[in-house]
């Protein structure tokens, strides 16, 4: 296919010549240092990843490059133009897709395209030709008359891309293009961007998903406004190449093994990967300790391919230790039944729209159970029904044997709930937040004081007691939210997207707590965007179009999707495979229906 932007960039500017020159750029907002002064270059004909956790300064840098923010120090040159002095020309040379794609939801696909074409000074007589190639490129052809608000996340993203590509920019800036987009559509976007860079365009892709960095030719890794790494991602992952291992054959004991491994002096980082434990040794550390551990627990130690996220953590000096102070203090959970959470034919309809369609599963005591699915698949709705926030239209849901429909109050006292984005009260101090959640869960007097003091000590919150949760570092905010949801020592914990927007080290710490809690018998229900986090779960339920399309252990799901193309599939590959086969099934069913 001849992609649309067959521009003249390559002819005029050699591949790999600098498209954006960042020179000691600094930016602060009031007290907050967003960018702390660094230099880098972004080149033509390459996909450059601007990678880092939330709050690293990615969007600020993007906005400076596209002339929407003025740096406080240093300078940025894009396509030979200074972003401040030649501001007007910058808007011509660059195509920018902001977060949430910048589309008008009440305009149709073609109306959005026409608007941006005119704003970018394209003549009407060129429209039809360019629109045609853009529509073919994005495969939006059949949907030109549909309102942008009615498109799926993936289609919106493609339309946003088409709009940013109007009038052939030399530099394409995409701010978090993969947020809210399912893995299948994400694949499409990678393909499109590949074609654009092949033709000489410089493409910048900002992302908080560190695994996306591995797909970029070059990476700028930001953390807290500093440039931590600049170069091809392999260069960073190569640093831990000889130090990445997998411990297999530890299936049942994997949480304990991870905890012990992380407490070793020579181990810098580790995660659970399905039935195995993955560890990264510290630089210049010997194998001795990990070998001894492997031998002791009867595990096989095998070297594995390094991952970008692990390399990032290594770069920052390794992750947290393996002991959860929280879980240590907890008494093991005693439950009469072995089933902690169960639902049968759970259905929720909003008008004619079915959000959850007869979903059934059972979660065992002490299990970490993941609920995954693309946006709008119904996982949040299912989740909310299970913790008593939504009433099911039909079907049954039980928590520790209590029917959520009749004994909602009693069931709720048996579960802890941590909402998305932590939902702490910004106008209350840390102590007041703790007191409030202790109060709503009915703790009183001495028991309340004791429990709060225990949480403060466990999570090391003493020095922040008087401050607002809003001004806490992210990691502490997460600790506080977890402390609030665990105040009443619930046997079942519901976590809704607990780690979105959180940096990898904080995520590691979080999972250390979750692993610890699971070992004490707490049942954990979790939804997540991060595919690699699904690996921490004992079992994963995959939802798609309101239905449960798969439910198994992470390893089994990966095994089922093994193919010649993906001999060693990741969780994301498995996800794509399952969604595609569900689509295929729908199609065959539809066509047989037509045939009949």
């Amino acid at each position: 296919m001849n992609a649309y932007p067959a521009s003249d960039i390559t002819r005029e500017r050699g591949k790999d010549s600098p498209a954006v020159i960042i020179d000691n750029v600094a930016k602060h907002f009031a007290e907050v240092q967003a960018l702390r002064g660094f230099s880098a270059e972004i080149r033509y004909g390459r996909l450059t990843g601007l990678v880092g956790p939330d709050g690293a300064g990615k969007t600020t840098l993007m906005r400076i490059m596209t002339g929407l923010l003025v740096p406080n120090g240093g300078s940025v040159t894009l396509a030979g133009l200074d972003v401040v002095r030649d501001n007007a020309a910058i808007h011509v040379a660059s195509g920018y897709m902001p977060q949430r794609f910048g589309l008008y939801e009440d305009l149709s696909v073609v109306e959005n395209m026409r608007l941006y074409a005119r704003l970018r000074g394209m003549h009407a007589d060129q429209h039809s030709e360019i629109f045609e190639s853009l529509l073919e490129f994005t495969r939006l052809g059949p949907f030109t008359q549909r309102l942008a608000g009615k498109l799926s996340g993936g289609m919106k993203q493609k339309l946003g891309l088409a709009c940013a590509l109007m009038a052939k920019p030399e530099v394409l800036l995409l701010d978090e293009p993969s947020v809210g987009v399912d893995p299948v559509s994400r694949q499409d976007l990678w393909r499109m961007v590949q074609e654009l860079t092949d033709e000489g365009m410089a493409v910048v892709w900002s992302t908080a998903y560190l695994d996306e960095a591995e797909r970029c030719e070059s990476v700028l890794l930001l953390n807290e406004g500093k440039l931590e790494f600049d170069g091809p991602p392999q260069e960073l992952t190569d640093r831990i190449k000889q130090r990445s291992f997998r411990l297999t054959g530890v299936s049942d004991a994997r949480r304990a093994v991870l905890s012990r491994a992380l407490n070793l002096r020579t181990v810098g980082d580790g995660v659970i990967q399905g039935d195995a434990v993955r560890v990264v040794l510290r630089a210049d550390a010997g194998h001795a300790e990990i070998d001894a551990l492997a031998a002791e627990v009867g595990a096989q130690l095998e070297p594995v391919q390094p991952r970008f996220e692990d390399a990032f953590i290594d770069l920052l000096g390794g992750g947290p230790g393996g002991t959860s102070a929280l879980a240590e203090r907890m008494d093991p959970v005693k439950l009469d039944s072995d089933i902690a959470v169960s639902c049968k034919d759970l259905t929720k309809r909003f008008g004619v729209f079915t959000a959850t369609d007869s979903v059934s599963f059972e979660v065992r005591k002490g299990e970490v159970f993941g609920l995954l699915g693309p946006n709008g698949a119904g996982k949040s709705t299912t989740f909310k029904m299970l913790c008593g926030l939504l009433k099911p239209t039909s079907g049954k849901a039980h928590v520790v044997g209590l029917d959520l429909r009749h004994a909602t109050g009693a069931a709720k006292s048996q579960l802890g709930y941590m909402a998305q984005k932590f939902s702490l009260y910004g106008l209350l101090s840390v102590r007041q937040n703790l007191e409030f959640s202790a109060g709503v869960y009915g703790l009183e007097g001495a028991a309340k004081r004791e429990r709060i003091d225990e949480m403060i000590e466990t999570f090391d919150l003493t020095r922040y007691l008087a401050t607002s949760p809003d001004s806490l570092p992210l990691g502490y905010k997460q600790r506080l939210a977890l402390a609030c949801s665990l105040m009443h020592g619930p046997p079942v914990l519901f976590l809704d997207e607990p780690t979105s927007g959180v940096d990898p080290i904080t995520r590691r710490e979080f999972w250390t707590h979750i692993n610890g809690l699971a070992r004490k018998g707490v049942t954990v229900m979790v939804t997540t965007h991060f595919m690699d986090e699904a690996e921490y779960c004992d079992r994963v339920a995959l939802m798609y179009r309101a239905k449960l399309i798969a439910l198994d252990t992470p390893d089994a799901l990966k095994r089922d999707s093994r193919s010649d193309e993906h001999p060693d599939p990741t969780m994301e590959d498995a996800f794509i495979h399952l969604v595609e086969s569900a689509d295929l099934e729908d199609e065959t069913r539809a066509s047989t229906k037509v045939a009949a």
Partner: protein
Amino acid sequence: MNGNVEQVREGMAPAGRASHKFDWRRLLALVRKESLQAIRDPSTILIAFVMPVVLLFLFAYAVSLDVREVRIGVVLESDAASAQSLAAAFAGTRYLKVTPARDRREVAEQVVSGKLRGFVVIPQDFERRLASPVAQPLVQVITDGSQPNTANFVANYAQGVVQSWAAGRRVSAPPAAIQLEPRYWFNAELESRRALVPGAIAIVMTIIGTMLTALVVAREWERGTMEAILSTPASVAEILIGKLLPYFILGMLATLASAALAIFVFDVPLRGSLLALLTLSAVFLIPALGQGLLISAVTKNQFLASQIALFSGFLPSFLLSGFLFEIDAMPAPIQAITYLIPARYFVSSLQTVFLAGDVWAVFLPNLAAMAAIGVFFFVIAKRKTRKNLES
């Protein structure tokens, strides 16, 4: 804008041809987009066309500053012919609606329950009082003091009825040499509807101009589309005009619709010319739109924008424009504040153009004041809106 920009970009990608000066095609594209959005958004239509109709109906029928057909009771305790004739005089006036009674207890209860606003007692010894050489109160008037205005009206009016009835009886009395007959100019019927409906048009325009504009600009910030638009070559002037022009037209259409409703449905006369009405409305939209733009430029948040628009736009035009409450009756400091409210000039102009005619001596200073306030808003709004996301 920048002289060397074009040089730098000479011979580069075809995108370089886009001019950075004011570009009509870009403006048209923005106007078209905004119009499509306005037409497709049911809330816009609701605010621009349904709400004005509701408001006008409210001010035309539900809100009335006139007192008419006040329900009172007349307790006739005397059977004398003179007493009967006085009762008939009460029943005969169109300002009162009389419930006749024989016993005051009957009506007293109805006053308590709010069915009547008061009652008049024509006492048993009415005949004797009438004949008495010493002036004696003829009737007793009892009113519902919980509604002081109406109570006053009932008391005064009952007095008036008795007096004119008494005057009519004294046939022997010579006719007064000079008879006073009040005549009200501009609103000969003294119907408040005639003054309220033109004023309501000012309220409608404030809502469309200030509230709607503040909301739609803030919406662009909230949804992130403003960021996308700012990253295109479109200039601030193009973006702002592209935003305002459709709402200007919408405001004018709503004015025409409201005026038509006022004239043809509510029988408010349009004594001035349509041209004057449209000129006034167009000029009033300058401060109204400017204020909306300023609010949204500062808040960038729909909720806040609507609250500020309510307090700084809608309520002042409602309370301080002379629409409901006479400005002359306000305390001096409040009167001074009203000069800052564009609706004040608009309301008085509208009342003039509807009820009096084209009095340009009234219009011109009002137009000048509205335009001045409008320009002031625009200058600040333009300063607050930059071609970037710096705040």
